[in-house]
C-alpha cells in the first residue's frame, strides 16, 4: 500500500512545487537592467578613499602626518608633503593610492586626525593594467574643482 501512497504523495509534492514556480511567472521582476538603470548607493558605501573639500578653506586639510600610510595593512597609500610655512603643519604635494591592493577596511579614514579622508561613491572603475589602478587623489581633487567651476560658470551664464 505504501507503494501507491508514495507515488500519490510524491506526485502531489511535485505539483505543489510547480505551483510555486508558476506563481512567480506572473510576479514583477526583481532584477535591474544594469547599465540603463542603477540602484541608488547606500549612504555608507565604501568606494576608494578621496580627499574631502572643506567649506572654510576650499580645499583638503591633509597635514601629511602619515598616520594613514602607517596604518594601512596593505601599503596602499603614499603621501608626500612640504612645509610651506615656517610654523604649522605640512601641506600634501602628492597623495597617491594603489587601489589594486586596497581591501577597503577603512582604517585610514578612521585614523585621520583632520578627517580629510572620506569614501568616494565611485564604483565603475575600469583599467587594463595594474598601473591604471593607481589614483592620484590631489589630481582628482583638482579635476573635480575644475568641473565644479565649469558647472558654476554654466549656470551663471544661463542666469545671465
Amino acid at each position: 500500500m505504501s507503494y501507491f501512497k508514495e507515488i500519490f504523495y510524491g506526485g502531489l509534492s511535485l505539483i505543489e512545487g510547480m505551483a510555486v514556480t508558476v506563481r512567480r511567472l506572473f510576479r514583477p521582476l526583481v532584477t535591474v537592467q544594469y547599465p540603463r538603470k542603477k540602484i541608488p548607493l547606500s549612504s555608507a558605501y565604501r568606494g576608494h578613499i578621496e580627499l574631502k573639500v572643506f567649506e572654510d578653506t576650499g580645499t583638503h586639510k591633509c597635514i601629511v602626518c602619515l598616520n594613514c600610510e602607517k596604518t594601512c595593512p596593505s601599503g596602499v597609500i603614499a603621501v608626500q608633503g612640504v612645509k610651506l610655512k615656517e610654523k604649522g603643519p605640512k601641506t600634501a604635494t602628492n597623495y597617491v593610492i594603489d587601489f589594486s591592493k586596497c581591501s577597503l577596511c577603512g582604517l585610514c579614514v578612521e585614523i585621520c586626525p583632520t578627517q580629510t579622508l572620506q569614501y568616494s561613491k565611485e564604483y565603475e572603475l575600469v583599467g587594463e593594467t595594474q598601473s591604471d589602478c593607481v589614483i592620484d587623489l590631489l589630481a582628482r581633487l583638482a579635476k573635480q574643482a575644475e568641473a565644479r567651476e565649469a558647472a558654476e560658470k554654466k549656470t551663471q551664464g544661463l542666469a545671465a
Partner: protein
Amino acid sequence: MAEQDGTQAYRRIYTLNLGPQHPSTHGVLRILLDLDGEYIVKADPIIGYGHRGHEKMGENRQYKQFLPNASRLDYLSGMLFNHGFVLAVEKLVGIEVPERAKYIRVIASELNRISSHLLWFGTYVMDLGGFTPFLYAFDDREQILDILDSVSGSRLTYSYCRFGGVTRDIDSKFIDMTRAFLKRMETRWADYDDLVTKNIIFIHRTRDVGIIDAELARQYGVTGPNLRACGVAFDVRRIEPYEVYDRLDFEVPTGSKGDALDRYNVRFNEMQQSCRIIDQALDQLPGGDFLTKKVPQKLGPPKGEVYSAFESARGLSAFYLVSDGSPGPYRCHIRVPSFGNLNVLNEVLPGTLVADAISILGSIDVVIPEIDR
C-alpha cells in the same frame, strides 16, 4: 582511459579528477576519486589552492590591520569572522564593549548567518540540479546584503566590527529594513518548503545519503550544523555564550540520523532561529555608545594567549592569539570549522555514487578558502 587493476582481472578501477575546475566543488577543491563504474572506491580531497598565508600575515600585522583579513577567511560569513576576531582581541586586551554595540554585532552576525545559509541553500539545490530555488534564495539574500550594506558600506567583506564596538551606529532605517526582511521571510519559508523540502525528488536525493554519525563526527572534529544533524546539540552560542546570546531565547535545532536531509533541515531551521534572535535583539536594543572611546590606537596587550571560540555559519571557529606584548600577535592561529567537515569526506564518500558525492559535498557546506587560509 581505464587502467586494468592488477589484482582483480575484470574489475576496472579508474581515477576521476573531480575539480579544481568543476561546477560543484565550491571554490577550488579537488577530489581524486577512484571509481568502480559510478561507485566511489576511494576519495582523496586535495586542498590548498586558495592558500594565502593569513596566519603568517597575522604575525606580521598589528591586530587592527588584521581586521580586513578576518572577513576574507570565510567570505560567506565575513561578519561572523570579523566579529570573532574582534572578540578574541577584546578578550586579550581587556576592552569593555558597550551594550548597544553588543546587540548591533549580534544582529549583524545573525543576518550574515542567514545570508550564508541562504547561499548554501541555493547552491545545494543547484548541486542537485534545481536551478530556480538558487535564484529565489539569492533574491532573499540580496535583501540582507542591502541591509548590511546600508550600515557597513560593503556587501561581502564587511570589516564592520572594531575593537570596542562597531564602525557605524544603526539607525531607524536599518531597523525598519530588518523588520521588513523578517516579515518577508515568514512567507518565504512556506514557498521553500513546497518547492524543495517536501519535494519527493529532493527527499530521495538526500535521505540516507552521506550519513555522519556522532562518533564519526567526534573523531573528525565535525562541528556546526553537520554535528547537530547527528543529534548532538552543540552550539557555541549556547555552551559558552558570548556577547548577549545568553539573554536571547533560541533553540538549537538537531537532527537524528546525520544524513544529508538532516543537515538540510538543521540549517533550514537555523535560519528561522536566527530570525527569532534578530527579532528579540531588535526589541531589547538599548541606547548608548556604539563604540567605546577608550581604545588606544596602538594596542599593547599583556603577554599571554587567548583562544576565543565563536559559532560561525559552518561551526565552531576560533582565533588563537599569542601575544608577546607587541602591537601584533606572536602567533595567530585560526581554527576553521570546514577543516574537520571536509576531512570527514575521506570516510563518507567511499561506497557512494558520483551523484551522491556531489550531494554530500553540497550538504556539508564547506567554504574552501576558509580551509586554505
